[in-house]
């Protein structure tokens, strides 16, 4: 990826050059296939690291070659942009797509501890939907007895298990940390004293490894040593704060710790967004006699939409992948009432890969169903700019 400045031109390209590129591209594709084939075939061997420069280069060539084909067929435009984006395309195709393909394909096999990659292994280990059947029969993953009851006896609807827990956590933590983060950012924007001190206070939890801070939260919320114990000792005997030990409330306890950790970064992003709002807008709003809170909600908030979208994606991707937080505060307890999908995936990863991969696939499909329509609406139109 050499960063030299090439002049960007949109000159039209003669057709014969397109044909030539197409031929080169096809030849390249053949080579790429051979290479990919050999990569699929070769199983782990025990040798010292032997850099295979040739295969490495060929591997790197695959996505560019695919794009030369595309170029050859649909014409050459924005070549600099494409070249500069090769690392990104390479990672998207070579890691995320290939990795996801592997995840999905091998979720239909019975691989246990050793990962396998070859088509032959796939055929040999194929077990159909067995992993998925087990997954949805595992109360740890999802247990919705209320769902059937709901139809029989009114709307008494209750779901437990890792997947519903994740949804609970995601909804609450996104809602609270985004709104609290915005509120804090607005307050920080009131030309207050010691802004730097407050900013650092709100941001520091983000810097500390959660393995230990999660444990501190477990202490604070533990009815045995924490707030409940200390406040009762002060004389308020009926004080109760035992969410972390309460099967129905434990996810809310985790939300508290999650908000503590994540809100600072939301605040920082929002503050950056607020500082980007033109002062003229404030003056105009003042002249029109609009109260400050309405200016924030009706004028400033819509102007911050790009920041909001970014924040929303960052917070929700963190919420979906929540792992450290749960392991450090409750380790899924009491019982398995605060289990989350990634914890299930991690645990099975070193015992039953097939199960782990099928759980990941379910999450991926769920995410795709929610996200792809949203991405199309949110980002689709701007690309034409």
């Amino acid at each position, binding site marked *: 990826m050499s960063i030299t400045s090439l002049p960007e031109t949109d000159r039209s390209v003669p057709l014969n050059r397109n044909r030539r590129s197409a031929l080169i591209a096809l030849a390249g594709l053949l080579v790429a296939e051979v290479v990919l084939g050999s990569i699929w075939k070769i199983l782990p061997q*025990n040798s010292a690291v032997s850099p295979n420069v040739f295969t*490495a280069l060929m591997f790197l060539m695959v996505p560019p070659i695919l794009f030369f084909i595309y170029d050859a067929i649909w014409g050459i435009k924005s070549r600099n942009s494409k070249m500069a984006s090769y690392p990104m395309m390479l990672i998207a195709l070579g890691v995320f797509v290939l990795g996801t393909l592997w995840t999905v394909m091998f979720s239909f096999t019975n691989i246990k501890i050793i990962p396998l990659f070859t088509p032959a292994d796939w055929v040999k280990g194929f077990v159909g939907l067995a992993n998925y059947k087990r997954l949805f029969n595992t109360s740890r993953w999802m247990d919705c007895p209320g769902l059937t009851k709901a139809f029989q006896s009114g709307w008494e609807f209750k779901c437990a298990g890792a997947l519903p827990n994740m949804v609970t956590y995601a909804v609450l933590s996104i809602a609270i940390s985004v709104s609290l983060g915005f509120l804090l950012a607005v307050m920080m924007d009131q030309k207050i004293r010691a802004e730097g001190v407050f900013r650092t206070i709100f941001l520091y939890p983000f810097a500390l490894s959660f393995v230990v801070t999660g444990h501190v939260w477990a202490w604070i919320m533990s*009815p045995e040593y924490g707030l409940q114990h200390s406040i009762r000792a002060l004389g308020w005997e009926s004080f109760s704060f035992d969410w972390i030990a309460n099967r129905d409330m434990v996810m809310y306890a985790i939300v508290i710790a999650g908000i503590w950790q994540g809100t600072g970064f939301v605040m920082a992003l929002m503050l950056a967004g607020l500082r980007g709002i033109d002062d003229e807008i404030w003056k105009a709003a003042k002249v029109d006699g609009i109260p400050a809170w309405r200016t924030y909600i009706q004028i400033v908030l819509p102007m911050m939409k790009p920041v909001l979208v970014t924040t929303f994606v960052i917070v929700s991707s963190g919420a979906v992948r929540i792992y450290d937080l749960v392991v450090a505060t409750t*380790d899924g307890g009491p*019982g398995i009432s605060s289990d989350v999908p990634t914890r299930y995936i991690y645990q099975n990863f070193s015992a039953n890969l097939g199960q782990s991969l099928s759980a990941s696939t379910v999450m991926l499909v769920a995410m795709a169903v929610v996200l792809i329509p949203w991405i199309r609406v949110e980002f689709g139109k701007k690309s034409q700019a």
Partner: protein
Amino acid sequence: MKLLKMAAVLAVTVALPHVASATELEVTHWWTSGGEAAAVAEFAKAFDATTDADGNPNKWVDGAIAGSGDVARPIIISRIMGGNPMGATQLNPGKDADDLIAAGLMTDITDLAVKEDWAHILRPASQLESCTKDGRVYCVPVNLHSAQWMWTNRKVFTDLGLEPPKDINELLAYAPKLQEAGIQPLSLAQGWPVGLMVNDILVAQAGVENFVKVYKDRDLAIAGGPEFGKIFETLAAIRQYTPADKMVPQWNEAVGLVIQGKAAANIMGDWAGGEFQVANMVAGKDYDCLPGLGVTPVLNTGGDVFYFPKNDDPKIQAAQLQLASLLVTKEVQVAFNLKKGSLPMRADVDLSAANDCMKKGLEILDHSDAVFPNDIQMIDRDSLNQINDLFTEFMANPDMTAADAQAKFVSIIENAPK
């Protein structure tokens, strides 16, 4: 072109470490606390004192990664798959490693084991068996840890005018009185300690024979039978002494409650002894350690073993065998196990420096019928995880009936791969 150059430079830097004259053997393990580190140092010291065939010194390169098997397994597998295996690695013996052996990733050390007659000098036999697959030996057992211990604080009982209990049944009989006095009969920590406690109670109440029949031979009649049913009822009774709001986050905090006299007893492995020592309490005077929960003195043979991932380098191969042989020599066994607080693999060593609880353990080891295999030696990790999930759920969820739990237990045993 730049890429080619970069790759060439890389090739050179990767090749460099092989030039060194000492044979370096990287060893991964998860012993990182003070006492554990001191024990590992004994291994390293002994290995560094050896030389290879050419007279060059061997060197132990420490690759400690805390977090036990769940963390270690993906790392070990990644390193092997990436083409840069470690020289030796700690791993849970048994079914965990079977897949790795089946994939041909582990070095076969049968010749060494036969030459040094490990079958006769190491005990109990079950431990070497778990290192053996299809008649070939793949790992070296270095110590024994057992999980079947109940720890009680004597003062708690004498203060209430009670005789300190000699087994779990006596403790359960005292439970109502203890609760009345505001003392938790049993302390419990979240996560794996729950599974450990349930397992211990199963063994204590059902007996070793039935336990092994269920876990190893998959005897569904026993697993679903009335005897196990009764134990599930007992567990349901125990769970009211350890409600979720009384559970603590970590095993050592649960032991701490016993030390402070806030709880009467805790069920935990022999490593809990270290916590009592830190608190300056004396075994048999301030606290009791009851193997097999006091019912029948039995111990399982969980322990630590080392495997040797296959390596192409003949120098590394030689060093691997040297280390394997060294780990079970008398001097190394004594030095290591005294520091680790675990029991040695050999009977022919002097352990007069051991504390009372260790001595109790040694005594049991001499009766081979009192020793039974660890669960991971009998059933696969995946099923164990499921069993652990079931028990943690059962102990925390008062709505789950004993019959429900037993039915689920039977179905996990039934579906476990042989």
